[in-house]
């Protein structure tokens, strides 16, 4: 994971250099070849050159002992950095776990180490473009985990990478537009759920389970929140409810009492604010102190499904509903996420996860690793990974258990095409991912 500084070589190099300088020209280069290769069986079969020639985008060639380069294109600077950093942590952990343990050292894939090319999507279109161009330009990029923000992907990163035949899997793009038939790019997939699923599920939960008939929404100007609240409002109205107000706030603001007073004037049954931890926490606190909102149910979404949010909201968080993937529906090792994974996360990154998307990115990275295993052809230690075949393998992902649920990629790249969306309630200062108060299998087709 981290480069070690080889002291001996460094000193040697310095000495050699000064000798060279002193002698002014006498050369004593000693070239060492990097470590040997151990052959592991790769999943792909057949004659590499034939397969590669047949693939319209060719193959990525990973020489013996060379690393398999995985790109990430996540927001790691600016105010949203914690979101992207969290996702990036998930990707790194997936590589770490290739050898079955979280030990801070990357495992190997098919006998090759994993190298990352971390790029910043800046949570903006221009950031997505620049980062995608950088990844696309590197012929060794096998696949990309990203982007963090839908605006960095839509028409930008998805197009640029698809044009190059590089698969891109987003752990946190939820904007519906990305996987509509008009907009979808052939190499784009995502493990995040489409807003259509989550927004609609929350609306159904509010109307059917909570018996809410009036609702208000707040978004923070991000396409994510705006998209979710729009789907929610649409579904809620179609179910027969009334939307009293659709408000918006500015990020990095801290005082939302005037918004809440305005919403409180109608005393809605539900306030849905699918935003992020900082502002979400403040809204939760301030809503509890607002007169008209005393009996209003507060609902957030996976942008707030994090320890950060719970901490930020303080005691006011009690009773808040949060939607997200149904982690309890995971049929594999029940304790893996809560136990081994979360412990390792804290160990490695020095704190609780700041967002929910590290899980999605962990799944995305594993999806990519599995697909590589399936299509790579090993010839004498050199791997040949055909790009189109890799993409096809990714789109063929079906019934795979990830920590966010079962991954079934549809033709438009939604790997949570049928997802179990859960609503958790915060009780006793925490939400229990093992015991959702509501769970629904939602399907994009339905």
């Amino acid at each position, binding site marked *: 994971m981290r480069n070690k500084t080889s002291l001996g070589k460094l000193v040697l190099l310095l000495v050699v250099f000064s000798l060279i300088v002193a002698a002014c020209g006498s050369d004593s280069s000693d070239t060492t070849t990097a470590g040997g290769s151990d052959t592991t069986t790769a999943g792909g079969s057949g004659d590499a050159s034939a397969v590669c020639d047949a693939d319209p985008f060719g193959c990525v060639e990973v020489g013996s002992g060379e690393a398999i380069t995985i790109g990430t294109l996540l927001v790691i600077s600016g*105010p949203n*950095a*914690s979101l992207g*950093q969290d996702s990036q942590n998930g990707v790194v952990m997936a590589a770490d776990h290739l050898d079955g343990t979280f030990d801070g050292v990357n495992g190997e894939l098919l006998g090759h180490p994993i190298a990352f090319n971390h790029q910043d999507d800046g949570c903006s279109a221009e950031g997505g473009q620049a980062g995608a161009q950088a990844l696309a330009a590197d012929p060794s990029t096998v696949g990309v985990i990203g982007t963090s923000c839908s605006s960095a992907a839509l028409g930008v990163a998805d197009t640029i990478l698809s044009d190059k035949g590089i698969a891109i899997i987003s752990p946190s793009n939820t904007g519906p537009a990305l996987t509509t038939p008009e907009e979808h790019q052939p190499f784009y997939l995502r493990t995040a759920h489409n807003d259509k699923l989550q927004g609609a599920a929350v609306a159904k939960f509010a109307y059917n389970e909570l018996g809410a008939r009036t609702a208000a929404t707040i978004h923070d*100007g991000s396409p994510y929140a705006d998209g979710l609240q729009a789907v929610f409002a649409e579904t809620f109205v179609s179910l027969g409810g009334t939307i009293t107000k*659709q*408000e*918006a*706030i*500015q990020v*990095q*603001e*801290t*005082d*939302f*009492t*005037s*918004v809440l*007073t*305005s919403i*409180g*004037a109608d005393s809605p049954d539900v306030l849905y604010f699918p935003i992020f*931890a*900082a502002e979400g*926490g*403040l809204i939760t*606190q301030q809503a509890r*102190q607002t*007169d008209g909102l005393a009996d209003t149910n507060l609902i957030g979404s996976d942008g707030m499904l994090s320890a*950060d949010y719970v*901490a*930020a*909201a*303080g*005691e006011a968080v009690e009773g808040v509903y949060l939607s997200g993937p149904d982690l309890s529906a995971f049929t594999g090792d029940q304790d893996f996420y809560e136990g081994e994974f979360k412990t390792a996360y804290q160990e490695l990154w020095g*704190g609780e996860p*700041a967002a929910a998307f590290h899980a999605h990115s962990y799944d995305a990275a594993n999806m990519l690793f599995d697909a590589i295993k399936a299509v790579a052809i090993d010839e004498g230690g050199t791997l040949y990974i055909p790009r189109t075949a890799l993409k096809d393998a990714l789109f063929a992902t079906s019934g795979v258990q990830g920590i966010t649920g079962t991954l079934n990629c549809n033709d438009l790249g939604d790997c949570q095409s049928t997802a179990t969306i859960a609503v958790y309630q915060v009780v006793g200062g925490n939400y229990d991912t093992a015991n959702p108060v509501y769970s629904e299998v939602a399907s994009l087709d339905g």
Partner: protein
Amino acid sequence: MTAPAPAPTPTEQSSRRLRFERIPMRRIILIVLSLSIIYGVVAGSTATLRTGVFTAEDWQSLIINGLARGSVYALIAIGYTLVYGILFMINFAHGEVFMSGVYTAYFVAVAFAGNGFLNSNPLIAIAILLLVSMAVSVFVAVILERLAYRPLRGAPRLVPLITAIGASFFLQYTFRGLYGANVRAYPNIEILQGKWTIFGIQMLKTQAIVIVAAMLLWVLLYLFVARTKTGRSMRAVGEDREIASLMGINVDRTIVATFAIGGALAGAAGILYVFLFNQVIFTMGFLPGIKAFTAAVLGGIGSITGAALGGLLLGILEAVGPNLFLTGANVPSPNQLQPVIAFGILVLVLIFLPGGFVGASEEKRA
């Protein structure tokens, strides 16, 4: 002038042109602009009030709220105003001075919460937090002056302003590197929870405390500046640096003292801020900083009273403005437009009262 008018001579022509140019176009545009804004505000407000969406209690609590956040702006604004009063530079990085103290005190608060001290001895704990926050802010402010601003004394005015913008980013990202990018929640202090009813008005304890504490600090500062030797030196250096040194005042030390006092108030403002909003993040200084600066300009930069009034006014306008002016006009999501109102007011004040509400007119000719 009964005779047929002769062809205008060149002088007359230019005279006519001058007569046209003498019309104060700018003033006319400004009057039209202000009238239309006043019309919009009045019409919007009456429409809102007529709908009766908001009750009197709603308005009351909004105003209290505005006062509380305005009090925080006021304390930060005083830091801008003090520095401006003495150096005539906008210390753009003052918002980061504010952030540095309260963010550092967070770790003390967490430790106190961990061992129960925070709720067993809340007053002592809060006093220590206040001290830590103020000390760190003072430290950052003084270092900033020494390393970034002092080498630039006497440079053209824009040079220190640009430096300050640089310092703002530098400090923000230094603290991001040190303390991380996550939002962090201050632990709850139990005695601050709940509401009080004062003069028949219900308000949160925290709001009441913040308003009172800010007023107290303001009075203390006012007395400090008016009564102490250091305060007098600050005023003297602000009025005439050369004559101040003729009075035996050490100008450098006085400037450092000014930064330190501004820093101390920012540190205190930080703790009041977390009473209200109890979270910290490395970017938290930027917006309050800009707003406090706006408040300082509103009140008349250089004036301590002006900064306090400007802060309160801005706080109230932000809290009440969008709902009052825009709801009636059927603007969707009016509260999203808060910056438009805040900065709109700033622009209008600077156009019509270049010296702010309190300060004397700064323009040297009409």
